[in-house]
């Protein structure tokens, strides 16, 4: 009866399944793809790409978990 907020059809039993969860694959897989970031250039404030890109992945992790949390909140 109550209107559902999520685009996912609600199931009778509780579940943590959600298509949004797939977003979490990004922060698990991307930091492991070394060919992607194992470079010296471009440098940022003197940091080789290897370092500042991996710092950037931390922000990617924060962004994705925040989005998934918001979208899957009951």
């Amino acid at each position: 009866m109550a209107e559902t907020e999520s685009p996912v059809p609600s199931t009778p039993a509780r579940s943590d399944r959600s298509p949004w969860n797939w977003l979490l694959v990004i922060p698990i897989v991307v930091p492991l793809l070394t060919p992607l970031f194992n470079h010296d250039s471009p440098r940022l404030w003197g940091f080789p790409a290897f370092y500042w890109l991996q710092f950037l992945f931390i922000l990617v992790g924060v962004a994705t978990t925040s989005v998934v949390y918001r979208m899957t909140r009951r």
Partner: protein
Amino acid sequence: MSDHITEIIVFSFLFLLVSAIGFVAARWRAPKDMAHLDEWGLGGRSFGGWITWFLVGGDLYTAYTFVAVPALIFGAGAAGFFAVPYTVIIYPLFFLILIRLWSVSHRHGFVTPADFVRTRFDSPTLALLVAITGIVATMPYIALQLVGIEAVLKTMGVTGDSMLARHAPIIIAFAILAAYTYQSGLRAPALIAFVKDTLIYIVIIVAVIYLPYKLGGWGDIFAAADKKFQGTPAPNDGILLNANNQIQYITLALGSALALFLYPHSITGVLASKNRNVIKRNMSALPAYSFLLGLIALLGYMAISAGIKPLPGAKEGTLDSNTVVPLLFDQKFPSWFAGVAFAAIGIGALVPAAIMSIAAANLFTRNIYKEYLKRDATHAQEAQVSKIASLVVKVGAVAFIVFLDPQFSIDLQLIGGVIILQTAPAVAIGLYTRWLHRGALITGWAAGMGLALWMLWQIPNAVTKRAHFGGSAFPLSEFGFDTKKTIYVGFVAVAVNLIVAVLATFFLRTMKTPEGVDGTTPDDYFADEGDPRIEKTPTTVDTVSST
């Protein structure tokens, strides 16, 4: 010693301050009845967002990490930066997997991962293996926190030459820690974590702004590091990875992330939070510590740039690379601020040491004492046994450091990370499916353990010139591949563990070996705050014996 007097005063003052906080913590959010393992061992399962953030942050990012990661960067360069991807990967894994453990534990009153395995797979033996693996993996980790404090004390020059003088400050520090953990349980590290992390954040923010300014900027720092690595004969160092250590980097980051979330102390931190949303929100907030860790790691390069020479190690002719960061602070900061920095590291050792000893004590109480020694133990008895066990664990950790070469603890911690991974099929996969047979999980565990220990035994260390347990990077050439590439031992071992478990499951199914009764229902894995607790019923024993 006299030239460090300001540092020693600041350090001692802050150390005594947190000790006082540790004792007061027993009255913080005081429960009606402390004589219950939920209260002493899990802080009443009531921690909200902020407390959980400080507690889990203080728990996962230990003093040893703060000292050893930059030391690794100092020695090997880019390979040591694995700590950053490792602490990025871990949070989505917590988010997806560990949250289920929180729910099912909330519902059934589980205190340890072995409690869950016991009920899920109806196998006290498997639970015992998980508990023992957890205790064995945690013990050296506690000892390593002492290595972190020792690096600071050594730099301040307060460690004498005789065995007693060398260890007296650590013994005193741990005695105080043991006393307030005994009294306040998990509330003590939770409250101290506020002080510890505030200090760490201040120190590191100052360090990453002030030190590059003194050292000529980040460009110069990386250039100095590059020059050092170019000049060394070691093939696998450098400010970037090379063709041979990338697989190691990837598997080490992934393997360490999986191991970290299976460690009993991380699970204790998570189970202490009050609901699912607290955990989920924290998974977005905890990476702030990963950022901090990345900056701390780079202190290793700053130490190179500043021309730091590590202090001599315990044995003649060795260097204690763990002293590079304390030395960097000592030489570049005004002495009062160096004192604050040292206190941050010292206190940083106490929080995880307290949580780890509580986690190990809970494993002993729930999965050995209650399971095998006194089945009808009351809640008060459980809490009492756990308190005493936490003391024993700490005495053991101090004994490790005092009587054995600290290198031994480092080796054991390395082994610890690898063996704790072997509980992944039972604990992590068990949260999703019960398809793997309990007997198969035991077989897989044994196979993974055996292989892991054999592989670690095969690895020599060129720097310390030892033939065995020299690291976790296993040369693939040992498996007959014609390559110089290396891989993380734990990763191979857990893969084999899983394959054996799957094959054995097929076999045991064919043989129609009994699988036991699952004590959980699918809905338990989504339970949240407010859902009723299932009072523990010792169903399995009676039902199994009557069939």
